[in-house]
């Protein structure tokens, strides 16, 4: 038995006065052995990211500080080190992979420069050796064209690639401990699986200990050796992965695991006789590339390439794909928030793309959208009732009647009508998304386009919102175009699924059949990449979820 790389005893982190609780963490005990992956699991606000901050000594002091306890790294007490000594350790022997690669990377510097910087600070390598090492690292994290990405700025590469860059930076000095703070949350399944594999590979090769912070039990099932469950700063459960996943003891853990959508598609329903409400034909969208004289040209991107589909009344059609597959572009073209290069979008027989601006405004009532980020998609300066009633009022409804209807809609999405006079920032994420759904319903549309409507929400909230969507769809006979990256979510709701890759449809079919027997290799790969696919959540028939 070797000594643990990281050993945390009785860690307490104090929050400033006026916070919802006095301690962000109260009494955390945790150790990470070399070559071990320990998952720290909890919902948003459980204090898991602050743990990472405490280990790296990057807490926003003095407001948030370590009140009690010890953090030992390779036997050394991190809390007793000077800032200078800590700098030597950060990025070299302890590396961190952040939650949001876009904000963790400097937008002003090229990707290559930023990885190079780590090597420059912690190694004595020469310029050429560093460049070679950077390209090697980029290749190691499976970035397709390392040379092009070396010269790209963070905003020019996709989200998945940015996270790979972050990991390349963390790997640069072959650290002994890696703190991964939700590193795969923003990624698609295949990328996620590759990165999880990559993390495993590194850990086996280097014997590094990994503290993996996540909210996703699928990921836990995929990667964890041991699991620590946090709830509101309290450690509620700790044990080996098999124990916690299959025989959870604490009610909180049981509730979390119970909320995970099962990978069982709904029974196929027959829509062959239903009328077609939305038909897309030959849609193409190309984004012109930008590049500079020095860094060289980057190829133009075809986001959507000759895409056609039909959606019948009452049906839910899933559009599934990785980031960059063009699925979000499809949702924007279909609602004509983005102009298609060619093709047609027929809503109830009228071509939306051929409409004049005036006709278009009239047509918009038939096709409504639920957006991904409920905070960004609600105007922060409008009251909830005005947000919901806005559409009908624009289309000539009596303002008073529209507001009264808005209150009814709030009840329909299971919010109290008292919410009507509040502003969006007063609500939680799940409640905001309900408001977004109510706004879409207010127009009594024929088609609802939902663009990743639950991907910004916690698992337990996600389950509630999905249930609501399914419920409303059945009651109001809605047709839904459901764009998602999450196959578990797609399996919950969609009757048919379109699988997209690089702007093209690679496979389409009834969900149950497609999940059972995927024919295209890409679909097979997607399905094989679902985190924790080998683990079926135990049946925890409790009402706690």
């Amino acid at each position, binding site marked *: 038995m070797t000594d643990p790389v990281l050993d945390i005893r009785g860690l307490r982190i104090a929050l400033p006065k006026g916070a919802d609780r006095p301690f962000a963490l109260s009494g955390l005990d945790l150790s990470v052995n070399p070559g071990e992956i320990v998952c720290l699991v909890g919902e948003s606000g459980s204090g898991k990211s602050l743990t990472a901050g405490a280990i790296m000594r990057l807490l926003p002091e003095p407001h948030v500080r370590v009140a009690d306890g010890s953090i030992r790294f390779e036997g050394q007490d991190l809390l007793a080190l000077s800032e200078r000594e800590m700098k030597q350790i950060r990025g070299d022997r302890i590396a961190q992979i952040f939650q949001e690669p876009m904000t963790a990377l400097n937008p002003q510097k090229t990707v290559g420069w930023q990885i190079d910087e780590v090597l420059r600070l912690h190694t004595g390598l020469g310029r050429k050796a560093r460049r070679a090492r950077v390209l090697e690292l980029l290749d190691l994290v499976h970035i397709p064209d390392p040379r092009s990405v070396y010269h790209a700025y963070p905003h020019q590469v996709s989200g998945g690639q940015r996270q790979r860059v972050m990991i390349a930076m963390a790997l640069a000095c072959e650290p002994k401990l890696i703190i991964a703070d939700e590193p795969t949350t923003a990624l698609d399944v295949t990328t996620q699986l590759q990165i999880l594999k990559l993390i495993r590979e590194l850990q086996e090769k280097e014997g590094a200990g990994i503290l993996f912070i996540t909210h996703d039990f699928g990921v836990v099932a995929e990667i964890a050796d041991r699991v620590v469950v946090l709830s509101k700063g309290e450690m509620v459960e700790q044990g080996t992965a098999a124990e916690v996943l299959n025989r959870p003891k604490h009610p909180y853990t049981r509730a979390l695991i119970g909320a995970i959508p099962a990978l069982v598609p709904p029974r196929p329903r027959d829509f062959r006789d239903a009328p077609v409400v939305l038909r897309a034909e030959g849609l193409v969208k190309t984004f012109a590339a930008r590049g500079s004289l020095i860094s060289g040209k980057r190829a133009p991107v075809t986001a959507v390439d000759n895409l056609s589909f039909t959606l019948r009344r009452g049906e839910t059609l899933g559009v599934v794909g990785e980031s960059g597959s063009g699925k979000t572009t499809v949702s*924007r073209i279909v609602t004509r*928030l983005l102009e298609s290069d060619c093709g047609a979008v027929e809503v109830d027989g009228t071509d939306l793309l051929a409409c004049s601006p005036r006709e278009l*405004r009239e047509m*918009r*009532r038939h096709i*409504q959208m639920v*957006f991904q980020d409920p905070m960004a998609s609600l*105007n922060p300066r409008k009251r909830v009732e005005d947000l919901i009633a806005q559409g009908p009022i624009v289309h000539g409804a009596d303002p008073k009647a529209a507001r009264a209807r808005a209150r009814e809609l709030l009840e329909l999405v299971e919010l109290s009508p008292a*919410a009507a006079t509040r502003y969006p920032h007063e609500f*939680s994420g799940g409640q905001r998304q309900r408001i977004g759904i109510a706004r879409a319903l207010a127009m009594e549309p024929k088609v609802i386009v939902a663009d990743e409507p639950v991907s910004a929400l916690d698992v337990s909230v996600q389950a509630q919102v999905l249930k609501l969507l399914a419920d409303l769809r059945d009651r109001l006979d809605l047709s839904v175009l459901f764009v998602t990256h999450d196959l578990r979510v797609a399996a919950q709701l969609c009757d048919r699924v379109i699988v997209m890759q690089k702007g093209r449809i690679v496979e389409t079919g009834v969900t149950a059949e497609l999940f059972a027997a995927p024919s295209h290799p890409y679909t097979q790969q997607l399905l094989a990449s679902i985190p924790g696919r080998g683990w079926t959540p135990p049946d925890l028939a409790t009402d706690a979820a």
Partner: protein
Amino acid sequence: MTAATTDLPRAEPAPAVALWRRFARNRAALLGLVLFGAVLVMAATAGLIEPTDPLRRAGDPLTKPFTDWAVPLGTDQLGRDILAQLFHGARISLLVGVLATLLSIAIGVVVGALAGFFGGWVDDVLMRVTEAFQTIPNFVLLLALVAILGSSIEYITLAIAIVSWTAPARMVRAEFLSLRSREFVDAARNLGVSNGALIFREILPNALPPVIVYASVIMALSILLESALAFLGLGDPNHASWGNMIGQGRAVLRTDWYCAVIPGIAIVLTVLSFSLLGEGLNDALNPRQKKQ
């Protein structure tokens, strides 16, 4: 359905109340408000102090302050009452300050909103025009405009507005550029909201707070510009204005300093009140910025 989904957070105070609370937390801002209130009172009561004409002869020329209670702050070299001029001057300063600010913000908002919202060639054209204005030094342009238009108080106000709309225009454009790509704009567009309503009802209210804060700066600057013009003798001679008073007091600065210093203090305090108000508004309207 579980109670958790219908639970609402505790009601927050009305936006106006919250705004006032954040504003009142800043002591300096309250001082600014008091000073501003004092200027308002001066402007409002000017008619009581001197109902006929503040520019009439009220006593012996160059009476020192606090010697003759008919003219408490003394008189200038033409025997005009300094106190009366000071109160009537507050009217002119406020009039110029408020009107010039409103005008310049209005021009700035329209130009900035159109440029930021539509982008492309609209943006190019409008921003080149803005830059053309910005390349000419403010005061030089103001002097030229007043020389062309004449120096009545209306034209001075207009001229000040014309030289100070560029900064708010750039500010509004920058806000629009970042706001127009936010999802709530797409959401409103998707409801069938027209471009005009998108600009003025959806985006503008979100873009306004920094502009409102900047308005206090423009107001202070307008008052300074008007005073500077008057100091150079280009003010409207038919109105008592603080700038005019300083300009005329300059001639007797060595012997009778109070003729220039009293209106000088009035200008300093007024400009100070605007800048304190602006800071308080900044705290109140952009609370997140200050917490860092």
